């Protein structure tokens, strides 16, 4: 029990306090505490977003007004989008689990710039407050949709500038985190931790960080231009002032399409951690998965205009972007094949994290495959801007990223908090989430193909049956989420103490005590094998040497 001895000697990061009370958190530069700060703030924003989503679905129960008027509904979907995208999914896995585990997985004591890391969290909180402050101000909350399309965003009388500033500040948070991670990966790897011995989660974070650094400034500049145009009436995007609305759409999607990969790549990284651990075997095709992350990050830059097939682009652009979009689907598909192949001849223990991963593979595959319908010109111009698109991105973002965020929460919960969650309750939540999710969003594919446009406060009566099924699904889904989060919060206080390595994982975080010591490692480990080398462990002993 080398780890037990270690734990007695070293203070864990929760006991180690540099300041008193709350200041031990909000002034801490420990990457683990910052990860927890992000987790708490993100889960809070997530539930605000869920509440808005719940109210939107309730409004959709009947054609015409059900609970709110059109103006309120329009602000609901705008804020739901802004909160879920900018405050939950984009920071999401990198900010929480990247912060917590990236240094540990490469054998470092912290990220390269710990103070910058804390600053990123403050920027995130300030940006978040800006984004939702418009709720309480004269003029009313923003009603442009999260895409801020010009000219409407120039002309509406609601508070547009404040949330835009919020998104701008959040962009900086994202860029700084990206910079921090890139530097950390390049400079702080433990001796022997070559690039091809890095866990795939680190690879995914690394690819993501590059997108964050390179793409985010584009949306920052675009946002500033919209603010200038709105405040000073300088013609940039609004044709009434001499601008071009399509220019805005191009600039917006040059960031916001790669942003989709900022959202999904880290989740793919987590999947590549969880599957080997519960199958007790090495990942199938390590290099292919690592390089496909980079390929996705790279090709992901050249497909942005597939959001604009009906916007009036030239026919040549439509064809070229359609072709590239089809090609970017391939590396994601390859990853799915590799994951499933990793289960082959494994020694599989079906625990909650793996159940979430299986749910992910099913839902994300549906999301990805319906992406082919949207990449194809003939079908896209029919279903774009309809509920089909709404269904598609919820399958990818919620069924993909958020479900994996839940998987990661369960997988790393014992390590982060030193407590076990209740396995039975965790498993009980999954059918609610799965059934609720599919009722809520699969119906939207059918609605969309039938011509139900998105961002509609009212709808034609023939769509009502499907809307009712969808709304009931939202209730079941929320019940599942409540069970899941309830279980985790309860376990935080009442859970049994966790072992250092409850799952038998071989990456470095499982070789240190739970919760980790303040400085992670008593001695920086020397790495002499790949990340998923199960041949060297038998039982619960040394992955480090």
């Amino acid at each position: 029990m080398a780890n037990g001895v270690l734990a007695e000697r070293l203070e864990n990061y929760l006991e180690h306090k540099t300041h008193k009370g709350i200041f031990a958190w909000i002034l801490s530069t420990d990457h683990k505490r910052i990860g927890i700060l992000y987790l708490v703030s993100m889960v809070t924003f997530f539930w605000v977003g869920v509440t808005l989503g719940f109210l939107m679905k309730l409004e959709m129960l009947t054609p015409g007004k059900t609970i709110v008027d059109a103006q309120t509904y329009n602000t609901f979907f705008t804020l739901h989008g802004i909160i879920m995208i900018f405050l939950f999914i984009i920071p999401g896995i990198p900010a929480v689990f990247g912060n917590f585990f990236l240094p540990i997985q490469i054998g470092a004591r912290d990220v390269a710039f710990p103070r910058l890391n804390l600053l990123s969290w403050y920027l995130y909180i300030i940006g978040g407050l800006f984004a939702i402050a418009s709720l309480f101000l004269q003029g009313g909350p923003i009603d442009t949709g999260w895409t801020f399309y010009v000219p409407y965003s120039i002309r509406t009388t609601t508070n547009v500038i404040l949330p835009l500033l919020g998104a701008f500040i959040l962009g900086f948070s994202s860029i700084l985190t990206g910079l921090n991670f890139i530097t950390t990966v390049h400079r702080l790897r433990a001796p022997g931790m070559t690039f091809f011995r890095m866990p795939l989660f680190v690879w995914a974070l690394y690819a993501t960080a590059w997108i964050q650094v390179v793409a985010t400034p584009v949306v920052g500049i675009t946002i500033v231009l919209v603010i200038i145009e709105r405040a000073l009436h300088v013609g940039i995007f609004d044709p009434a002032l001499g601008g071009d609305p399509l220019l805005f759409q191009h600039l917006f999607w040059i960031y916001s399409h790669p942003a989709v990969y900022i959202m999904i790549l880290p989740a793919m990284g987590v999947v590549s951690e969880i599957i080997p651990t519960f199958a007790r075997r090495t990942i199938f095709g390590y290099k292919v998965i690592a390089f496909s992350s980079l390929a996705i990050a790279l090709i992901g830059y050249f497909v942005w205009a597939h959001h604009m097939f009906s916007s009036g682009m030239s026919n040549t652009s439509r064809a070229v972007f359609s072709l590239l979009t089809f090609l970017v689907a391939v590396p994601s598909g390859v990853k799915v094949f590799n994951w499933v192949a990793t289960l082959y001849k494994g020694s599989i223990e079906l625990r909650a994290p793996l159940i979430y991963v299986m749910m992910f593979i099913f839902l994300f595959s549906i999301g990805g495959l319906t992406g082919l319908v949207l990449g194809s010109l003939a079908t896209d111009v029919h279903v774009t801007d309809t509920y089909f698109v709404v269904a598609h991105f919820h399958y990818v973002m919620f069924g993909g990223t958020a479900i994996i965020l839940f998987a990661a929460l369960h997988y790393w919960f014992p390590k982060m908090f030193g407590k076990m969650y209740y396995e039975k309750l965790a498993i009980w939540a999954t059918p609610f989430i799965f059934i609720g999710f599919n009722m809520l969003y699969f119906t939207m594919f059918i609605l969309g193909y039938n011509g139900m446009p998105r961002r509609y406060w009212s709808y034609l009566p023939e769509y009502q049956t499907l809307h009712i099924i969808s709304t009931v699904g939202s209730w079941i889904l929320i019940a599942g989420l409540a069970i899941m989060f309830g279980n985790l919060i309860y376990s935080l206080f009442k859970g049994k103490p966790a072992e250092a390595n409850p799952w038998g994982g071989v990456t470095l975080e499982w070789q240190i005590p739970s919760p980790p010591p303040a400085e992670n490692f008593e001695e920086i480990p020397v790495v002499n094998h790949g990340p998923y080398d199960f041949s060297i462990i038998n039982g619960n002993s040394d992955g480090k040497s």
Partner: protein
Amino acid sequence: MFVSASNYAKNVDSVMLYIIGISVALLLIITFAMIIFVIRYNRKKNPIASQIEGNKTLEVVWIIIPVALVLTMFFYSFSVYKESRVVPPNAMNVKVEAKMWAWKFYYDNGKVTDTLFLPAGRPVKFNIVSQDVNHSFYIPAFRIKEDAVPGRENYMVVKPEQIGAFDIACAEYCGLNHSLMYTRVYVVPEKEFAQWLNGEVDDDYLRKYVASHSEGYKDYLSGSYAILFAKGCVQCHNIDERKGIGPSFPELRRQFARVNVGGKDTTVVIDKEYLRESILYPETMIVKGYEKQAMPSMLNKIKDEELELIVDLLYSNFVKNKQ
């Protein structure tokens, strides 16, 4: 469900079936393989895992097959889509103008309408513009849309084939009443269309033609409803029995209405006075079940003679016409 009204729409449906067919097959393979592996290689049955690091041949195969599949999807889809982008020489031009929150259609001979009339069997090139913000001109039954962007003219080509009435929606978010920005396209034979375009017959004649030559819409045969369209009544009140945001006109045949007056439920006789009151002061008597969305008052928005025309029309065609 899944109304399609042109060959192009049917071709789009075929592309959809092709992509979805392949997708379902892939999804089933992935899902079943995953479930079978989890059961077959359960730790109890298979306590020691085999450390398989990869298989070059297999990995190359499952890169090449998807690439080939998506390429066939791309080419098939593109070949179908071309029809909506290539303007045939015999195409008729219609200018579509969007503004918050209504559509206007301009024909080459100067005719302007709120609802769209098209001849069956002839390609139409829509030249799409916007007066204010972005909109999107969307006809689900034709499986096509194109944005209306201020400051530029977009186009799309459609060849309607089936006689009937189909919805036109706005698909790009445009503010408060985005979801109410609906109108209709009526597809009629070329002969009737030419008569209409030359002013020999009116809108109403074409709507009746559509009503008598297609499914649904039968109520239209009993009267002249042009004014109900001109004044926007049909956005919320349907001429057939379908429920809308407000009660449908055929509900007037019940002779009595259960209404809410000052918070109390009561029953009133539907007469001309009731119709007049309901149009000018809709909030005083709201029909049960429709309290959620009050109708905007038409006071000062319609002329006296228009009000009388609407009241007479509703009275004689619905209240007194029990069919």
